[in-house]
């Protein structure tokens, strides 16, 4: 009793599955399937919508790296998503960077910001960690609201999509789509590798029992910082890409509700699963897209969906599926 109680109460544990050491074959198959779907999708669906989904998929997966596998609940991930989006929009619009460089620049900014915020935040745990990240994110928001180059409420609009490597015109949606697909897919593979690396194994241990990890000689703060920076950087990659896709960087990207949204995506899909956040992000973005026509009822419908999913599918779509199939997904 007491043992089970403290365990389930202690953290994100129960949903996290322990993976065997070798990459399960069905994971390879799923990745391949996702890629095929990604390649075919723009011929069936609206490419801009798909790109939005892709950006949020990457964002949610980056967040899940920190929460589901690092055991750290950041409530300020919008800071990285948004600052990267501003940075890449600025680089592309004002400095005339090519899209790949603008995105790289944005990602770099997010990583630096992640290093700054992370090195302060990881000194705290649990809900306090969440709150410190939130506090810093609010400061980033404030900065974005006040700083001259961010355009305040208007944001940075009319960002040029430019030419990839100075060669390929990114203005046609399809061209841009395949570029974005490549970025996001590479991002997902990177995350997968991080999770299943020796580093990832230590992360799991730290999340399970930090004290014990210390006593075994692990300098846990460095691990936490590294995963924080990696997560911030990948979130930044998503944000920077989004700015180029929509030709816009705005306050929405740095507002706290964005941090909340990514939590929702991750939970809805299944925290601590590899593929959950992908599904979660797809569901939420689709929902927002199609609910827009319901007008004032949008929030009511959205709220109802959250309540239902918490009450009935709390392990997330993929979490449940994974249980049913008895396979880690």
């Amino acid at each position: 009793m007491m043992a089970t109680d403290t365990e389930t109460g202690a953290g994100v544990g129960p949903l996290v599955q322990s993976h065997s050491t070798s990459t399960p074959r069905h994971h390879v198959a799923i990745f391949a399937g996702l890629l095929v779907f990604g390649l075919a999708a723009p011929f069936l669906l609206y490419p801009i919508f798909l790109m939005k989904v892709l950006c949020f998929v990457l964002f949610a997966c980056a967040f899940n790296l920190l929460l589901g596998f690092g055991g750290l609940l950041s409530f300020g991930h919008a800071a990285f998503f948004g600052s990267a989006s501003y940075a890449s929009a600025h680089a592309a619009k004002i400095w005339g960077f090519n899209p790949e460089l603008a995105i790289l620049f944005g990602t770099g900014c997010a990583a630096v910001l992640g290093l700054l915020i992370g090195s302060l935040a990881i000194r705290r745990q649990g809900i306090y960690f969440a709150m410190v990240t939130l506090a810093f994110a609010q400061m980033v928001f404030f900065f974005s609201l006040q700083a001259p180059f961010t355009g305040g409420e208007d944001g940075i609009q009319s960002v040029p999509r430019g030419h990839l490597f100075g060669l390929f015109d990114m203005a046609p949606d399809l061209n841009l789509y395949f570029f974005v697909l490549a970025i996001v897919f590479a991002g997902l593979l990177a995350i997968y590798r991080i999770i299943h690396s020796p580093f990832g194994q230590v992360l799991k241990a730290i999340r399970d029992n930090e004290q014990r990890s210390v006593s075994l000689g692990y300098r846990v703060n460095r691990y936490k910082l590294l995963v924080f920076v990696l997560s911030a950087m990948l979130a930044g990659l998503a944000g920077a890409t989004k700015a180029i896709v929509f030709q816009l960087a705005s306050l929405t990207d740095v507002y706290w509700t964005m941090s909340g949204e990514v939590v929702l995506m991750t939970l809805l899909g299944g925290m601590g699963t590899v593929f959950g956040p992908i599904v979660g992000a797809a569901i939420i973005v689709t929902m927002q897209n199609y609910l827009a026509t319901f007008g004032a009822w949008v929030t009511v419908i959205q709220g109802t969906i959250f309540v239902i999913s918490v009450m009935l599918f709390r392990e997330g779509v993929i979490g449940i599926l994974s249980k049913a199939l008895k396979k880690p997904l």
Partner: protein
Amino acid sequence: TDVKIGVMNDRSGIYSDIGGEGSVIAARMAVEDFGAADKGINVEIVSADHQNKPDVGSNIARQWYDTEGVDVIADVPTSSVALAVNDITREKNKIFLNSGAATSDLTGAKCSPNTVHWTYDTWQLAHGTGGAMVAAGGKTWFFLTADYAFGHALERDTAAVVKEAGGEVIGSVKTPFPGTDFSSFLLQAQSSGAQVIGLANAGGDTVNSMKQAAEFGITQGGQAIAGLLVFVNDVHALGLDIAQGLVLTETFYWDLNDQTREWSARFEKTAGKKPSMIQAGVYAAVLHYLKAVEAVGDKDPTKVMAKMKEMPTDDPLFGKGVVRADGRKTHDAYLFRVKKPDQSEGEWDLYETVATIPADKAFRPLADGGCELVK
């Protein structure tokens, strides 16, 4: 011809009462009143909530144009969203009938050959209210400015008017947006001793700051309050007890003449309340657009836009007017004063007209806007 009109506005946030579903109703009324079906024009109306976020708005606009065959986007309050939609409409060569947004940039620095800005703008508000107050003796001003682009623009424009008219701005304070508690800022305004406290904010911010000004006895102390962007719905929400004596500018009020009264009564039947000037603007703009389509016999945006600018406007709500080369629609504006409770004869009997500002004075002169379309 088949025409698809997208009404995009805030349907759940702070501007949903002045636009929202009411704007959709107004657009539908325009289609009916025009008798589109009889004239062989098939009109479909869709709507969406942009949540006052430029990213959401631009997303919807893009999708509407790309995948849903929308020809015209109407309403779009909130300046930042309006500017985003302005860009996309130009890129896709469609038509944007803005009624809800305030920024005068839409017909100035950022003007577009595809946009008509119908109802009002910051220049007009500043000149209407600011000019009138100074003329009435309010020489010293203190601004409560909502801390975002719209607030800044409104303050800047009004301050310019005040100075031009011989008044003086003795202070201003930027208030976090959106805010609920303005007492601290009002206290600063009070202790500044300014004759006029200018509220460079909108919606809930205006309502709350008015309410609290009354609570702290600011108007009793002899200071006047100028609402730079106040809608009839705000006054209705405040109640006359608090709002009485407030001076403000609008370009439409339901009780102006028989035509507006008749139309507003019909509107009220479906919407449950009197129309705001934004909703009136949506009606008039859609009506004018349909007339142009009929005249051209085609919905080609370039041709229709040329027609809209060439053809004088005429509708029951704003009377006769023109769409200028920069996209600005001009018409008369009115300076209103909010009635005292004992003057009011009904729930919506809220304003008395102080002055009518003729169309050519009400809006920024064509040459001053810096619009590239004006040679």
